[in-house]
């Protein structure tokens, strides 16, 4: 399941909910991404998405990862709009019979979300606002799975 939302979410609550009611799943892996303040400068992050398109694209990649790694289930929750330093931006959880698949799928999904997912990121800082590109590291990480 993929969800975009402007409101903050609680990673712990999402994880608890995701773990509930499972019988064949032996492994649940989760990742939470937080907004960092750049070198102490108070900046607000703003994420723009294309409603409908962004969820569909992420869904395609997630279904592909589910098939590739043999997951039982996945959950992706992603903030859009303005996000303050320290707030959770993204939550990814994967469920599978055994842990290797859950770890690798979560890793791949995060590499995708950080470099290729249809978001446009803007940073609001003391010097104004600027659009952010993926880092060379993020791009290289995503290519690991190609």
């Amino acid at each position, binding site marked *: 399941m993929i969800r975009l939302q402007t409101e903050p979410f609680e990673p712990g609550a999402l994880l608890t909910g995701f773990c509930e009611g499972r019988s064949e799943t032996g492994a649940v892996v989760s990742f939470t991404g937080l907004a960092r303040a750049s070198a102490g400068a108070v900046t607000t992050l703003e994420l*723009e998405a*294309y409603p409908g398109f962004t969820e569909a694209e992420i869904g395609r990649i997630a279904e592909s990862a589910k098939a590739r790694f043999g997951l039982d289930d996945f959950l992706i929750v992603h903030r859009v709009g303005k996000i303050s330093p320290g707030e959770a931006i993204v939550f990814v959880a994967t469920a599978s019979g055994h842990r290797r698949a859950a770890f690798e799928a979560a890793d791949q999904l995060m590499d995708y*979300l950080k*470099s*290729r997912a249809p978001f*446009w990121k803007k940073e609001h800082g003391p010097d104004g606002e600027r659009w952010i590109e*993926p880092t060379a590291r993020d791009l290289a990480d995503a290519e690991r799975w190609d």
Partner: protein
Amino acid sequence: MLLFGRLADVAGWSERTIEAPPTRLSALMDMLAKDDPNLGEALAAKGVRVAIDKVVVNGNVDLAPGAEVAFLPPMSGG
């Protein structure tokens, strides 16, 4: 028509409807470039993709009346 990311900043708008749109994507882009050369240049930049009714298209395609055309700069991820 929808503009995302930096493209909307260049154009000064993010959403616009035209009553009698061209029937080919290339003609639509020419029209936008003629109105706003800065936008035209930005749309032609490497990595800008076009989605029609939320499906990414490659190259020049026909535009149905009422189609939603979105111009997407390179995605930055979240």
